[in-house]
């Protein structure tokens, strides 16, 4: 069930959540977990784990794969749209976890007091049993923060379960767009393509990738999703992102960039049409000692995929002739007034908070 609600009113009746309910996500995850992970390409040796020597045992839940396949940039041999773009439109979602933990995607939210109290969390076990860090460079899987920024990130991470100031609340909980890169591991999303554009419809926010005009907006225009100018190189959509307001975080672990960040994203699509890797290099000298690279594996979802209320919130369309067509409902978020959201009034007044109360529900 969503703790991040879907309707921007006081009315606690999420549109998409209604769909998710009918799909029984937990059952769906179990089904997904029962399916052997069959990456079409060889597994990448994770920077912080040695998962390649193990079978890709589904971790269950949102993060059901533990490895990141290698997909090389190269020629595109799949189908194309009339304008020549590789046809990669459709529904996609990441395979290794949500935004609970950026560098340990299957490691849960650090310092979860509820888990500690109830003792219901299984011990995590060795790090190499879980998916690698989303930071694929530097090789240690950690973000190369400058000391002041590392301290701030740590403070934000600790504040997640002890929110005392409005800025302790993760903006996504307030329905803010998930930003870059978090949009790519916050539920499934859809890509639509048009001559001159690639359009991303995320669970929280949208992005228009301009393929024709390479000129960014004036630098003083800062945006949650940034300004994206892209082009295709074979199987790879290369997108230059600037104008980020850097208000969005990377996850519930407090990672952030500054508004001077510049991102070069590569969406490297496997010609088998089932997977792509998001490989983005961030340059932000204000907060980091060197550029770093984020890698997020993603898999295509279709009407033939097993039901899944987190990765694929897409019902079948109502057709008179029995065609199986995915239906895409509106995605409209409304600030929730409890759980992770903390509530507008509560957060604004920075009163006591207990965000952990809904952790089990997430």
């Amino acid at each position: 069930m969503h703790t991040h609600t879907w309707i921007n009113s006081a009315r606690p009746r999420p549109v998409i959540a209604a769909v998710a309910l009918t799909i029984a996500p937990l059952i769906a995850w179990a089904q997904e977990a029962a399916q052997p992970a069959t990456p079409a390409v060889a597994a990448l040796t994770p920077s912080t784990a040695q998962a390649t020597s193990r079978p890709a045992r589904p971790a269950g839940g949102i993060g059901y794969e533990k490895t990141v396949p290698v997909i090389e940039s190269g020629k595109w041999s799949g189908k194309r749209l009339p304008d020549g773009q590789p046809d990669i439109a459709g529904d996609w979602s990441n395979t290794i976890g949500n935004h609970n933990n950026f560098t340990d995607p299957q490691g849960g939210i650090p310092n979860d007091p509820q888990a500690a109290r109830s003792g219901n969390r299984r011990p995590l076990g060795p790090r190499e049993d879980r998916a690698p860090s989303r930071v694929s460079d530097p090789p240690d899987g950690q973000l190369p923060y400058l000391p002041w920024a590392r301290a701030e990130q740590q403070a934000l991470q600790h504040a997640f379960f002890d929110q005392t100031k409005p800025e302790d609340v993760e903006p996504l909980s307030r329905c803010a767009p998930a930003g870059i890169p978090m949009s790519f591991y916050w539920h499934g999303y859809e890509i639509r393509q048009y001559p001159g554009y690639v359009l991303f419809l995320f669970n929280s926010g949208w992005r228009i990738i301009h393929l024709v005009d390479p000129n960014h907006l004036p630098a003083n225009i800062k945006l949650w999703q940034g300004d994206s100018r892209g082009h295709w190189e074979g199987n790879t959509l290369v997108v230059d992102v600037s104008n980020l307001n850097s208000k969005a975080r990377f996850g519930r672990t407090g990672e952030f960039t500054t508004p001077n960040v510049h991102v070069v994203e590569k969406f490297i699509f496997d010609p088998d049409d089932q997977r792509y890797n998001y490989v983005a290099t961030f340059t932000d000298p204000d907060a980091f000692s060197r550029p770093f690279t984020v890698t997020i594996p993603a898999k295509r979802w279709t009407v033939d995929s097993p039901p899944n209320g987190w990765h694929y919130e897409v019902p079948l369309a109502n057709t008179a002739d029995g065609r199986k067509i995915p239906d895409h409902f509106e995605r409209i978020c409304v600030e929730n007034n409890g759980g992770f959201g903390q509530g507008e009034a509560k957060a604004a007044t920075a009163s006591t908070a207990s965000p952990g109360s809904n952790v089990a529900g997430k």
Partner: protein
Amino acid sequence: MNSTVHKNAARHWKSAVGLVAVAYLLGATTLLAADAGAGKIPRFANGKPDFSGIWQTTSLADYDLEPHAGREDAPPGVGIVEEGEIPYTPQALAKKQKLFAARESADPRLKCWTLGTPRGIYYPEPFQIFQRADDLTIVFEFGDSVRTIHTNNTLHPVETDHEFWLGDSRGHWEGDTLVVDVRDFNDQTWLSRAGDFHDEALHVVERWKFVDSNTIDYRATLEDPGVYSKPWNIEVYLYRHREKGFQLIENFCYTHDYDQYYPYPQPPSASNVH
């Protein structure tokens, strides 16, 4: 010297004659095209009109759908309701008047909530249409609203209580007119700043048609038996943005309330970037 001037003048005169001739020919061509009707409008690969582009109304509909004199919060306007006034039931009219009185604090647009259908179309902020054979995607600059008009011969969902903000939109083509049936709304959106409202039973039928390649005639019929005594109609023109460099810019305006808390933190030496 004089002769030079004369020569130039003569040359100009010749040019002018040429221009007139060209203009005449162009005019004739334009007339012929106009005679040919919709032949000049952009068309999609499947022959249907192609509404791709960034659009915006110049009408003042969002201030008030009905005829009204200028007032502090609205310029005057003749309204866009074909029947003149919205046929509210007596009870609904009383509610509308209450909402009108509270409009400066109660209008959902002030919170940047999704404007709904049809309000998003005539709200004075641009939207971009992305068109494929199977759907038209409307990305509204205001808020975080994306509306899909399905043109893939699918029906409204079997379940009818999703209570969408924008409604469920199923479209089909009648000649060069896109006809869209929109149902399954919530009752949270207003139709204008003047407190015009609807409830969950709202049913909208839109008709989108090119007037010329840069102008869309947008008509909608609204019916909602609990609120209106009979169906009523609106019409606005939508104009294509053609200014150099014009583009849709995200405006997730519901974040403005808490923008002040982010970004956080900032480098010790950074100036305030808010």
